[in-house]
């Protein structure tokens, strides 16, 4: 079951990609952090720190065809991404999580490419949010 990040809890604002998911909904993120921009930056730092180990886990799972590991890794990334209101990453991670849950890994490479593309778009926006040069 696909979760509708786009419309379920927060309004859309701008910068849609792919399947009309937003890469980062900053207005929604400000709601999540109670209007505290510094906290949003702190969360972005943590999210960026965790991206590499999370993607490593997902890549290993895909390479080894390990559905259980894929489900767990993709679930972890989806949760963080949803909290960051990074909808396109959350949606791409959910697609991989669903594959892992079902054990049906047909098309997993394409789903992984979609996730990598979404992360590539998200990363600079999160870096900007951290205030780092």
């Amino acid at each position, binding site marked *: 079951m696909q979760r509708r990040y786009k419309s379920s*809890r927060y309004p859309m604002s701008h910068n849609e990609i792919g399947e009309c998911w937003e890469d980062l909904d900053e207005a929604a993120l400000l709601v*999540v952090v*109670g209007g*505290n921009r510094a906290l949003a930056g702190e*969360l972005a730092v943590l*999210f960026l720190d965790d991206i590499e180990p999370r993607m490593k886990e997902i890549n290993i799972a895909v390479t080894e065809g390990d559905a259980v590991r894929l489900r767990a890794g993709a679930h972890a990334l989806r*949760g*963080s991404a*949803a909290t960051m*209101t990074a909808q396109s990453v959350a949606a791409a991670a959910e697609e991989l999580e669903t594959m892992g849950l079902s054990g049906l890994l047909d098309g997993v490479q394409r789903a992984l490419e979609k996730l990598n593309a979404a992360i590539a778009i998200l990363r600079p926006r999160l870096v900007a949010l951290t205030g780092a040069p």
Partner: protein
Amino acid sequence: MATVLVVDDDRVVSHLVTSLLREQGHKVLTAYDAVQGLMQAKRTPPVDAIVLDINMPGGSGEDTLKKIKMSTRTSNIPVIILSGSIDSQGQERVRMLGADAVLSKPLVPEELFAALTKAL
């Protein structure tokens, strides 16, 4: 103001919840897995409430909730469940296990504050 234990393996969510609760004046303890969480839950003096992720690796939040509610030392502590993906059956199940509230991720601060106020 209350002492709240936050049990979540996700550092982003844990930092978010911790920061929001501290801004409200609460004292917050954190645990990043079920084992740590159960240890912290049994501390003396006891915490006033627990915010618990239902889906953690190496021991589900449901198991943790069961253990909290089965122990005489912790059974009276209100538990607020956080979940990124829980259906209505799952919500009913954790409520039957003793959860006081079930909140969806991404978190809405007002929902967290309201659930905590109601639970305390």
